[in-house]
């Protein structure tokens, strides 16, 4: 909630002035859109006559009717409780999206014939590459964060150079540099390890900063207290600092996980058969790119929604644990 007070007023969408403005704006927009030769024109045929010949009058009257329907919808939703509002608005937006995709005239049979392979090959590869990278990046981030906080000049210099370099280069470039550059040094690295390495190094750098900020946010007194009790560095970190830093570290880390899942698509340039690669190639022979791209887009979306749900679960866990 923006304001956590108890002042209750009419919802904004029930004020007559705002309703009027909404109707006017929507009418103008719908009129400019020119809906004469769409299905809405057919519905309005009794009023405006032949839709194609009705010109501005047709456009404007369809616009007005559409605007009134939309605004009635908004006003009605305004009466409902918060949770139901969310459900209905989500449902309506989703419906709009689906109509949008439906209007492309996609070949669903083609999607059906390919989707199983996209999941078993594409989603599987995407998930395992992301999972390995996330685990390695977390390890790297803890090491990096400790190094950045240490008083050792070497450790600090290496860690800060690392975060600066890998946050400063585009991830796509890192993928190319590792895949093409390492062999020049004598290491011939395969596509999948090269991709995992690029993702690990890049996200490790971002997560280093997150971990460092989390650890730094803990009051100095906590360190002093545990030091005075004779705790060593490792014990202090494990038992005192990290448990308190976790609630601050987890939410942005979850964000990184979600971002990484999508950035793993960059690995497709070096020929790994993950979801993005298949989205580009499966439709190639039959010239059905839109079908495959939209399918892959929806799969990515579903995957991130799952991750978002997990993230909000974990966040809630830490919120209740810390308060």
């Amino acid at each position, binding site marked *: 909630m923006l304001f956590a007070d108890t002042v209750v007023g009419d919802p904004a969408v029930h004020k007559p002035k705002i309703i009027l403005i909404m109707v006017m704006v929507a009418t103008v927009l719908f009129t400019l859109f020119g809906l004469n030769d769409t299905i809405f024109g057919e519905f309005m045929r009794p009023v405006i006559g032949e839709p194609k010949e009705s010109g501005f009058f047709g456009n404007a009257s369809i616009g007005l009717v559409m605007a009134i329907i939309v605004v009635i919808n908004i006003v009605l939703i305004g009466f409902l409780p918060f949770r139901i509002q969310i459900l209905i608005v989500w449902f309506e937006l989703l419906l709009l999206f689906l109509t949008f995709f439906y209007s492309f005239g996609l070949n669903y049979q083609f999607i059906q014939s390919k989707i199983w392979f996209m999941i078993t090959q594409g989603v599987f590869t995407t998930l395992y590459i992301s999972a390995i990278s996330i685990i390695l990046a977390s*390890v790297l981030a803890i090491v990096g964060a400790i190094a950045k906080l240490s008083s050792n000049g070497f450790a600090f210099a290496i860690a800060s150079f690392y975060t600066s370099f890998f946050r400063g280069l585009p991830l796509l470039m890192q993928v190319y540099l590792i895949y*093409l550059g390492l062999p020049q040094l004598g290491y011939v690295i395969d596509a999948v390890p090269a991709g995992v390495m690029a993702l690990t190094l890049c996200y490790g750098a971002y997560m280093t900063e997150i971990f460092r900020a989390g650890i730094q946010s803990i009051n100095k007194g906590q360190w002093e207290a545990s030091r005075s009790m004779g705790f060593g560095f490792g014990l202090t970190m494990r038992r005192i600092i990290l448990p308190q830093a976790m609630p601050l570290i987890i939410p942005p880390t979850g964000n990184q996980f979600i971002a990484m899942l999508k950035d793993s698509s960059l690995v497709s340039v070096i*020929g790994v058969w993950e979801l993005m690669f298949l989205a580009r190639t499966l439709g190639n022979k039959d*010239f059905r790119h839109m079908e495959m791209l939209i399918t892959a887009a929806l799969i990515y979306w579903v995957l991130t929604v799952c991750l978002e749900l997990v993230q909000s679960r974990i966040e809630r866990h830490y919120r209740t644990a810390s308060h």
Partner: protein
Amino acid sequence: MKLNRRIFTFATGVALALSASVSFAGEAMDRVMSSGTLKVATDANWAPQSFLNDENKMDGFDVDVAREVAKRLGVEVEFVTPSWDIITAGNWNGRWDLSVGSMTPTKSRAEVLSFPEVYYYTPASVAVHKDSAAQSVSDLDGKNVGASTASTFDLYLRKDLTIDAEGTPAFDYKITPGAIKSYKDGTAAMDDLRLGDGVRIDGMVGSLPAILAGIENNYPLRVLGDPVFYEPLSLAIDKGDTEFNDKLAGIVQEMRADGTLKTLSEKWYGIDYTTAIE
């Protein structure tokens, strides 16, 4: 101090985990024969030369040729699909042994790759949207013309195309485009051209079989005039293994002599593209 040691242990551990699959390059012929597999690099995004078929396996003219080559070498075949610019950049370091990717042996590519033998020739043609007013290739002078980046079509538009293979028919540059738009592949150029005449581009140069395949799949395009040049297409290997080079050349000559190449060409293109056309 203790902390530092831990950092190094961690770092070494990560480095080891990442380098687990490292291998060193050797002589290509020995590698193929000792491992019993021929690793072939092909583009998965280039029907009908190479693409994923209905069973989601690699298929197409190039793929069939690669299978036949492996069969005659007496080894298994395995396909990898790095992007085109990585293949043409050379320095494969033993990642794969051979490219059967309809590659034109240009002078600059010959600096980093060896071309054992040309296995077929395709006509390069100009395509325009079917509403276009252009009547001949030179009508595209000063217009926006698309081609896939780093391809022979791109080089042709830049008037910088040198093909140094025997039996290549001579050609001259017939277009002076106003601007050249580069695409990831030929399909992307066709996708832009289908939007309408001059919406994003006014025309494109691409391989005739690919353009015809697009037209067959309801792309609103039309082929303009005669092919602008014929490109010889060759197998490619990394530099430095003459034994492998000669062996592959022998196999392709054999495949041409016994009609295998002709059969494959007719299977995939409906036309015999395997001999040089005047």
